[in-house]
């Protein structure tokens, strides 16, 4: 299948390894990945912060960049949710392309749960709010993780509680965000996991930023990177 990758401006800039992992994974499964160069941002930050006027042009540009693709994949639950739920709200004239978050594409569209990955580490999974409650990905990421060879997957207590990121919320309401982050980190540490994974690098940057500041020794890794990992990888 020919699949267009929507990398998201955030992953493009901060976490290119996640994008490379998506490409590697999908190609390994026998698919062709395109990267439409006209893509930029889906407008989520502006929309969610109240700057609709500024977000609107991004919606048209997005639809233009991905026009004609029958499947667009993105390693971000919240950006996928933005396109699916709110692009029509911002610009009713626009017909948004079919965007799938990675686990949706793999399980629902490509019908695969064992992607042939190998990741010999103790891992816990944080279901991000937008994956869970906007996209309703359910246990698809967990199905994919359970099939990874060598993995020691442990359940995260209070997993469905928000980590406190919320985009500009973490700046505008930093104290409340801190309180939520503290609880999330406590739960992550209680699992004894070496690696925290999720379908969104924004949440992982938030929780990982706190784990790093406290020198907890718990790392973060996007779901795509675990699914792309194979024996012989460093």
């Amino acid at each position, binding site marked *: 299948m020919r699949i267009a990758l929507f990398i998201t401006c955030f992953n493009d800039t901060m976490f290119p390894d996640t994008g490379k992992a998506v490409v590697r994974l999908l190609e390994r499964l026998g698919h062709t990945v395109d990267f439409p160069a006209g893509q930029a941002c889906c407008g989520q930050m502006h929309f969610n912060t109240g700057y609709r006027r500024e977000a609107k042009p991004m919606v048209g540009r997005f639809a233009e960049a991905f026009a004609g693709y029958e499947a667009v994949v993105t390693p971000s639950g919240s950006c996928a949710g933005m396109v699916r739920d709110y692009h029509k709200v911002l610009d009713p004239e626009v017909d948004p392309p079919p965007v799938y978050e990675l686990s949706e594409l793999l399980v629902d569209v490509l019908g695969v749960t064992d992607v042939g990955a190998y990741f010999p580490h103790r891992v816990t999974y944080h279901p991000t709010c937008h994956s869970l*409650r906007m996209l309703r990905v359910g246990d698809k990421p967990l199905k994919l993780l359970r099939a990874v060879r060598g993995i020691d997957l442990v359940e995260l207590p209070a997993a469905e509680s928000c980590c406190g990121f919320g985009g500009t919320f973490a700046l505008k309401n930093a104290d*409340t965000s801190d309180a939520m982050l503290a609880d999330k980190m406590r739960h992550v540490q209680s699992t004894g996991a070496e690696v925290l994974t999720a379908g969104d690098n924004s949440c992982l940057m938030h929780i990982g930023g706190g784990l790093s500041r406290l020198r907890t020794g718990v790392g973060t890794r996007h779901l795509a990177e675990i699914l792309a990992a194979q024996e012989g990888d460093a």
Partner: protein
Amino acid sequence: MPDNVTWLGTPAFPEAARTALGNNQLRTNLRKATGTIRDKRLAVTGELADWEQLRDAGAALKLRTLRHLDSHLVRLEEAVTKAGGTVHWAADAAEANRIVTELVRATGQTEVVKVKSMATAEIGLNEALAESGISAYETDLAELIVQLGDDRPSHILVPAIHRNRAEIREIFRGAMGEWGRAAPDDLTDEPRDLAEAARLHLREKFLRAKVAVSGANFAAADTGTVGVVESEGNGRMCLTLPETLITVMGIEKVLPSFADLEVFLQLLPRSSTGERMNPYTSMWTGTTEGDGPSDFHLVLLDNGRTATLGDEVGRQALGCIRCSACLNVCPVYERTGGHAYGSVYPGPIGAVLTPQLVGVADKQAASLPFASTLCGACYDACPVKINIPEVLVHLRARAVDEKRGPVPSPETLVMKAAAMTLSSPRRLGWAQRFGAIGGRLVSRGGRIGRLPGPLKRWSDTRDTPVPARESFRAWWQRTRGEGRS
């Protein structure tokens, strides 16, 4: 001057939340209480096979009623009048307070007993009555705790959720004597003893009262029946013993027909207290000779509701049945408690209701739609499917547009610059190269630590990764050549 929806002098949410987050007792009480209610709700909503259909029915009934609110209200007025009641229309808090005050004065009484009511809290009725020399006694146990403690409610359903039993004992011992029958000197903090002290204190009020003031959970337009649901029976005492009953009800509480209660009397108790059925459901239709109050007045309150109805996205907030399930599941509310919202309506529903009732020009009210991570737990819990995240982002846009002026604020300038950058792949590419260099300049050991300026609040507690030396698009360009453009 009485409050009107918001509490005068409350700072904007981020500042009020900072104070609340530092209160460890509050944090402990809230964690325990919200956690308990949350689990109870999940158990009793999960056992109904048609729970989702009930939610759909509740949402549809509310939205359809709101579309024809004017005609339902006129029908209600006719039915209540025919049944022997009197209907009054109040455009705002001041008018409602004036109507109630005059009605109490006409009875010659100087005290009233009150059923727990959000509408009368919203308009600051107790304060308004006090200005006219009328004492209003709260009889709901939690409202009594709040009133005796000279405190504010912090939850829609359990207004004293921020108090534990040791604090309640101190409040009872300190203040009950000033308001009526004092608490015994040897009062313990056992729930049974606390309840007994409240029972004796309140019984005196019930037996003496000639006038009661209540809110309403619903009113059926076809029969003129008004109803209150509660857990303690104290409301039932107020609704049946006095001679005069004055009910203040928001105009959005009307239902087209009595039969619609079938849906809401299932949705409400399961969502609010986590019970299959609420213990006391009191309903009355006008007046009945020799049974209950002989004089009944229904005050229909607008106070910003018609303006809210005019907002196609925001109006769904008027469907709220005040169950407070959204508060109990909200990760922000669970940590800050209700006082930080500066309004009688806290939590997610308050964050969408308050700014609409008072307008987004008010700085404190305008801060409320931003008091959410948009995690969506509230929408999942809402028994009438109010899409709270959708209304939150809608109101954020209204708040931002309200502030736009000839001179853009620093935040607007940043957002405009970001939009310029993020809407063009070329400009994004330049920004990525610049960011990678800048990030390296301020990083240590592959991480960016504390930063000054607008990122200070973020970086005080979180490290930030350094932007990649090579962006994804640069890597693709280098390794795969021209992409499809």
